[in-house]
């Protein structure tokens, strides 16, 4: 009797738990499906390609991501689409994150950050594109269709820069520096996008984005084209690694070379070889070349 009395509340509790599961679990599955299907429908209405969503759904499922989590992941793209803002970058980043098997909470954080940065970037890009110098440059070099593409690329690059920690003010200042007759006469839309793309990747950008901006501006003035600009971040990182010098030395070295008219290819090669920035090879702190023409062994 004592035994029965003791077990009975446990059994009752188990029955209640099972009953609760039966009630809640199907509802949970149903809720997930609902939130995802509502979002998918909304996305489709806003112009997001339905087949793209389906592809993401399949990849998410393969990665073990639930429908609920996927709905959360897609939310930033839908929010941007609602604001008539480019959302491709969010979808691309989602695809990339899924391909790289990034955990869903990390992916969600990155996408939410990108969404906020893209929304912020509109406040920078749209007023900038209305400036007369920029308008003249676009009329000269771009078709109407490519102007829209240019805006999207600018929003993408600006959003990326903001998402990597640059402030709205520093990006705005940089773009205002670009709005200069001398600069705009030398570059096209692609080079502007490239400039913004590399801005957060320069080793100076975390501490001194203003210096990074000046460096890009001077590089453009010195004849750097899009392909040269693309190599600048990795070349500077290489110079920093080889020389173990403060990055300010490297920037100063580039400024000086630009000042005396050294070609972009020479400057980049010098950076990759660790020969630009402060004292040259062969002195303390630098990887000395045993054969440096000094004549001494």
């Amino acid at each position, binding site marked *: 009797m004592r035994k029965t009395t003791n077990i009975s509340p446990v059994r009752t509790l188990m029955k209640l738990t099972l009953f609760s599961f039966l009630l809640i679990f199907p509802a949970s599955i149903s809720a997930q499906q609902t939130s995802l299907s509502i979002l998918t429908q909304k996305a489709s209405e806003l112009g997001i390609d339905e087949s793209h969503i389906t*592809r993401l759904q399949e990849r998410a499922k393969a990665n073990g991501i639930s429908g609920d989590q996927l709905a959360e992941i897609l939310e930033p793209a839908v929010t941007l689409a609602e604001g008539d803002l480019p959302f491709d970058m969010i979808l691309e980043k989602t695809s990339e994150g899924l391909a790289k098997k990034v955990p869903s909470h990390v992916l969600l954080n990155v996408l939410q950050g990108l969404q906020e940065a893209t929304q912020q970037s509109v406040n920078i890009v749209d007023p900038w594109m209305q400036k007369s110098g920029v308008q003249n440059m676009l009329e000269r070099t771009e078709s109407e269709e490519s102007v829209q593409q240019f805006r999207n690329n600018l929003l993408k690059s600006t959003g990326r820069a903001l998402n990597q920690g640059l402030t709205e003010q520093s990006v705005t200042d940089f773009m205002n520096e670009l709005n200069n007759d001398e600069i705009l006469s030398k570059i096209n839309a692609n080079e502007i996008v490239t400039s913004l793309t590399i801005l957060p990747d320069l080793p100076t950008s975390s501490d001194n984005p203003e210096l990074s901006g000046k460096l890009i501006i001077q590089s453009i003035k010195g004849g750097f084209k899009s392909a040269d600009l693309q190599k600048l971040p990795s070349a500077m*990182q290489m110079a920093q690694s080889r020389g173990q010098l403060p990055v300010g030395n490297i920037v100063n070295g580039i400024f000086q070379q630009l000042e005396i008219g050294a070609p972009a290819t020479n400057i980049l090669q010098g950076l990759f070889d660790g020969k630009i920035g402060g004292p040259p090879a062969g002195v303390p702190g630098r990887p000395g070349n045993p054969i440096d023409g000094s004549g001494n062994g």
Partner: protein
Amino acid sequence: MKSKVLTMLFIAYLLPFPALSQDLQTSVTSEFRVGYSSNTYLNPFFSEWDRTYNSGYGLAATFGQLFWDKNRHKFELNGGYVFEPFFTGQSTWHGHLAYARYIGQISSKLHAGFNIGTSGFQSDFDRNLHWVQPYITWFPSSFTSLHFKAGSNFREYVGFQDSLNINNRLDSYALEMESWIGFRWQLKGGIYGNFENLPAIQNGISTSFSLRHLFVNGSRITSELQFINYSSEFTTTVDEGGGPGGPFGPPGGTTETQSINDQIWRIKLEGSYPVSNNTSAFISAERSLYESSSINDGIGDFQISGGVRFSLTPNLFTSGKRTIEPIWTEDTDQYTLRIKYRGSGNLFLVGDFNDWEMPGIPLREESKNTYKTVLKMEPGLYEYRILVINGSDEKWLEFSNNTSTVKDGFGGTNALKIIE
């Protein structure tokens, strides 16, 4: 023999660290030169005062460098061989040079480390040098460095000036400075001395100052003016006081104790022209004037030479982490991506090109170790990675330092391709 053992020890030190290979870089430089000099003091790698070698000469030298860099630590190992024949029949000057250097970055303005090395050269006499020098470098500004080093040099001369054998140890110190004025002007100075002379530094001290001017515009022209002063009291041993340019003594040598003040002026002009990314041609001319309190007239010498230098940066240590360097070429409306890859598995291009769909666009083997794919691409920015699939293993390949990359936001990097 000692020097060979030391060299092997350095190499042995590096070999057990395959995990370091991802941060290990290599470079190889070769130089071929012909020239004429009136004094071997001006000859590359010779730097011994001998005016009887008034001769045309050749030079072939190859040096390799291993360079490891991680966070605040840098280690480099340099070694090479020099072969310097003379056209008028004197014995060839040949031998090796090897040194290792460690640099620790205490702060952005303060570095500390050590230099340990050995060299052994043979000709009419043998010269072996071994040294170990801890040092500290301070960067008071972006363009100025102050460098203090102190350590021991072990010198061995066998059969010097026909019969003299010298075996000594010098405990020396040096304080050097270098400053760049507007990039084009480089000012260097140094004070060198031996501890045994302290506190009477006038008994063995040398100073050196040089001013270089660079003209850079594709080609490079360097002019250099150097003034070296040796103040010393010495007896029979050849003693240059730890200064630059290797052991130096007055012509003829002496066994008496003397106080001597030697001064050397050197002016040098060198021009180099980049023939290709890895090759440059150069010419060099140098004039020197030696004056001493022990002689009445100054002694003038000259050196003129020209040649080519080759530099390569092979990826020799890639077993730990293979790196690849994508090469893009454009042909009308399509783009070809080529990658050199030595390893097993199938390569795939994954990125904005294909919405990061796995496994991606396959790269076909075009020739041995070269893979390619051809794409039609609209103007825009494309981020991508290369995936290698080997059975059930999937691995993202790392890009070389020469590749344009951007941060991917997830803590890694993507390669970047911009289509205009």
